[in-house]
């Protein structure tokens, strides 16, 4: 009896969780189709006018382009140097391997805001004033922990003797890496890339201290729009970002499986 009650309680909590977590997302989508400039829900009619206005938001296209550039570039660099470091940590006889692993993941554990102000003062102190490059470098610290964590976990499960086996069977070293190691690690690599990209694209607390008047990332612009004049254009923009996220998640689910992602990237 008590056990059944406990199970019922667990399911109740799960239902509450689902409704609660979906509520803001559903709201944004619904509000984006609102015909009136105030967010009247339930809707009396459907309108796409806010979607047309996204492109006319002041400074929208440069902000989107900047955010995409920073996210793609910092993720790409983090994937390369993070994976190399993960191989050294898991495979090699690296002195202080465990310390390096902890250090690589540690930026995740600290407030983004603190990282932001630390980098701001640092770049000022060394006279580094190139905003775009500063953002890429800063986002490298945002993305690297995701890559390091996921790739170290992925590599720890990989049986390196398989590479030797492939070589014994006649593969070249490069061929063995390409045909055995790369396919086995592809899921970890994709997961790491997805989380890094999203972390960078959505980052506010680090970027806010490194942007200037003319160079603003999309999250900073969005917060500015919300504080200045919230209207359903923002809901429309949010819906499009959400749709893109759904596509990314569905694609990763097909390729990797959400269940595996839950295990590799908490």
């Amino acid at each position, binding site marked *: 009896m008590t056990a059944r009650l406990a199970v019922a309680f667990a399911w109740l909590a799960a239902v509450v969780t689902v409704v609660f*977590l979906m*509520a803001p997302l559903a709201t944004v989508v619904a509000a984006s189709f609102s015909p009136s400039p105030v967010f009247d829900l339930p809707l009396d009619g459907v309108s796409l006018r806010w979607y047309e206005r996204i492109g006319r938001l002041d400074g929208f296209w440069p902000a989107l382009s900047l955010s995409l550039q920073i996210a793609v570039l910092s993720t790409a660099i983090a994937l390369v140097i993070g994976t*190399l470091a993960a191989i050294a940590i898991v495979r090699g006889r690296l002195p202080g391997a465990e310390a390096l692993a902890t250090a690589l993941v540690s930026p995740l554990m600290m407030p983004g805001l603190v990282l932001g102000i630390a980098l701001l*003062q640092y770049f000022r102190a060394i006279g580094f004033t190139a905003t775009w490059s500063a953002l890429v470098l800063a986002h490298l610290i945002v993305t690297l922990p995701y890559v390091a964590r996921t790739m170290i976990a992925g590599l720890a499960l990989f049986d390196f003797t398989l590479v030797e086996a492939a070589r014994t069977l006649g593969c070249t070293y490069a061929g063995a890496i390409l045909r055995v190691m790369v396919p086995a690690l592809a899921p970890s690599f994709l997961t790491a890339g997805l989380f890094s990209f999203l972390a960078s694209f959505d980052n506010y607390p680090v970027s806010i201290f490194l942007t200037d008047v003319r160079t603003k990332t999309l999250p900073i612009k969005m917060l500015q729009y919300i504080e200045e004049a919230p209207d359903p254009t923002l809901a429309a923009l949010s819906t499009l970002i959400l749709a893109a996220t759904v596509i990314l998640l569905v694609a990763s689910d097909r390729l990797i499986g959400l269940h595996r992602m839950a295990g590799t990237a908490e």
Partner: protein
Amino acid sequence: MTDTAVRTPVTAVTRPDNDRWLTLGFAAPATVVLALLFVLPLALLLVASVAGPAGFSLAEYGRLTTPHYLGVIWNSLRLAVLTTGIAFAIGYPAAFALARARGVVRSALLATLFLPLAASVIVKAFAWTILLRSDGIVNTVLLALGLVDEPIRMIFTETALIVGAVNIFLPFMILPIYAVVAQLDHRLVDAAATLGASPAVAFVRVVVPLTLPGIIAGVALVFSLSVSAYVVPTLLIGERYPTLSTTIAKAFLLARQPAFGAAAGVVLLAITLAAVALSARLGRSGGSR
């Protein structure tokens, strides 16, 4: 590491130096990036926080002990404790349901965790400003159910802040707990029952200790995320509830008081590091039992 050398004696004998240099070379780029863009800036922040006009000074930390700023620190801690507590109360049982779910239901549940996690924090906080307005959906529902007589003011209150924070950080509580619950050996619970334990006793003596690593990880994660949250307090409560994060941002972006901002930043960092260190310690002692 030594057993690989035994298993592959040929490579180990012919290329030991080669391997060593390759390993160092692989680790080098990330190590350099971390040293130059993480360790050094943080060290500089620490220095800046104690640098007065005439050398070493703790004046900026002194300012943080005035009643106003102690209130600010209290606000941050209160936000973190309430958020973590509520997220745990919802997330712990929900993680069990998730672990019991199979097939389509489990996929759907996981998707509802991942989608908000992947969605922008700003988008979610913005949605709550719509939901919690006095003519918003939450009020409409409350009125329709007869729970309130007139719309209650929610936006820019502490309720809005906590609701938004729990909403945004809840997945970070559920996922680590789920990872542990999914591994739980249910035969242990059955064994406890066989040995005469009531379900409640089996839960407290068997299930809770076994899921403790997940609880510790989730609590530490949600605490450190919510204590340093910036977007949520900015959009959902604003000036009325200054936190360490909003104070730091203001010191740098508006007031131009970098030394004070640096000191506040060090305090915030110390709080999150204390939470992480405590959880690591608890995790270890829990594991050795």
